[in-house]
């Protein structure tokens, strides 16, 4: 089966974590060497990696930090704290909490916490990979022959792999990708990996989703999610809410790839990241708008569960 580099965008080799710099795709496939938690926080905060890549970075960072000079447990808790505060919306604490819990339990039982951390991380990664591959099949199953599918931002390889799988089953599909300003993940990542998967993809401005839906150019919407609430609300890349509202208005099913969690009760409890407005107002070092103009850049928005037609869940074992 075709596997997108975005499906597994970080790997550990000889105590260095190599993280795909997604800001350079599709021009280059370059991996950033990360050697410690400081480097990990930087690649997350600067959005060199995002979505599932963050999950890989968080788990693997503990493997980089197993030999501190001082107290190991205290150090791992500090590592977790730094990762938890790297960006606000992704539920980092739910992931780091598992690793810290395993280390503490091992220490209390007289077992070397290093072994427990390594076993937990490796087991977690193996499990999540198998579950994501299963979800690729689930996504492909929801795709019907002649579907025209709108997607937003990028869902870390799974959509492209599902497209490839569905095509191998004889399904003829078309995709529309929003460009996803200001970081252009749709323009750069989604179009690239769908093309790598030999799928037909058309890029549209973010403001064209109403036209697409009103003109019946799409019959299905598939998006990812960065966080789920206990009531089924999700947080995803900014723009997801208005896509969900329009999809509901035009009776187009909205399918969301989710990671169920009971960490927060509803979307209202999810912190939404506000990023630097210059990421919107400046491009290539040059101002895009007049210098006195201000900008506003929320990184995510919440999609209430009642707007979601179907959630394709993954059980991360959290």
């Amino acid at each position, binding site marked *: 089966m075709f596997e997108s580099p975005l499906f597994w965008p970080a790997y550990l080799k000889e105590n260095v974590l190599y993280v795909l710099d997604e800001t350079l795709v*599709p021009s280059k496939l370059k991996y950033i060497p990360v050697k410690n938690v400081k480097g990990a*926080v930087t690649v997350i905060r600067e959005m060199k990696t995002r979505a599932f890549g963050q999950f890989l970075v968080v788990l693997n960072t503990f493997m980089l930090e197993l030999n501190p000079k001082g107290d190991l447990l205290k150090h791992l808790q500090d590592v977790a704290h730094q990762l938890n*505060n790297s960006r*606000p919306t992704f539920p980092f604490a739910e992931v780091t909490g598992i690793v810290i819990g395993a280390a503490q339990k091992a220490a209390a039982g007289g077992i070397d916490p290093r072994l427990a951390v390594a076993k937990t991380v490796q087991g977690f990664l193996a499990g999540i990979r198998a579950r994501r591959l299963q979800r690729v099949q689930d996504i492909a199953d929801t795709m019907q022959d002649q579907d025209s599918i709108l997607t*937003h931002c990028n869902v870390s390889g799974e959509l492209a792999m599902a497209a490839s799988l569905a095509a191998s089953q004889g399904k003829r599909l078309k995709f*529309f990708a*929003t*460009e*996803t*300003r*200001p970081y*252009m993940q749709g*323009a*750069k990542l989604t*179009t*690239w990996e769908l*093309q790598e998967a030999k799928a*037909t*993809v*058309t*890029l*549209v*401005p*973010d*403001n*064209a*989703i*109403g*036209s*697409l839906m*009103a003109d019946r150019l799409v019959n299905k919407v598939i998006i990812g999610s960065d966080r789920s609430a206990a009531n089924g609300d999700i947080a995803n890349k*900014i*723009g997801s*809410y*208005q*896509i969900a*509202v*329009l999809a509901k*208005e035009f009776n187009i099913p909205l399918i969301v790839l989710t990671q169920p969690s009971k960490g927060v009760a509803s979307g209202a409890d999810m*912190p*939404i*990241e*506000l990023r630097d407005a210059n990421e*919107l*107002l400046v*491009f*290539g070092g*040059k101002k*895009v*708008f*007049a210098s*006195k*103009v*201000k*900008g*506003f*850049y*929320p990184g995510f*928005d*919440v999609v209430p569960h009642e707007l979601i037609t179907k959630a394709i869940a993954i059980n991360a074992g959290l």
Partner: protein
Amino acid sequence: MQDYKKSKMNIILECFSRESIILFQGILTAESLKKLKLSRDEHVFVSEGRPSLEAGRKVSAILLNMEITPTVISDNMAGFLFFKGLVKEVNIACQYADNKGALCDTGALILAVLAKKHRVPIKLLAAERRTRFIGDPQTVLSFEGQRMAPKGTHGYVPLVEWVPAKYLK
């Protein structure tokens, strides 16, 4: 290290009281904006209007000339403002209107549907006249002259769209 529990978002949102933002979308004429008699204290947000960014640039320039400092958002951010209950009025650029609806700059349908759902009043303002309904597909594949999408990607750029009257009441 920043503690996101005291997030910038919360601080910023506290600056805007509920239903305080006036939202503009499309390539509006200076005359139509000046007729609104906006106060300098208004929180005015402008959608950037990809792919040309002409809407964001022109409307911002007109507003600055009126001594109003606009805040630009990308075209996918309006929904967030509605969801937070921050929008008090929407103004969209309209090419033509009759009792069945209005022909507006692309993006208007999103705002009209959101405005209806959130019960926010919407106004049609005169748009700069367009002579084309579909834009060059290449324009969405690049940003400020720099290629974004890989070779072989198709682009689709509708420049205007029909907004049915039911969303404009």
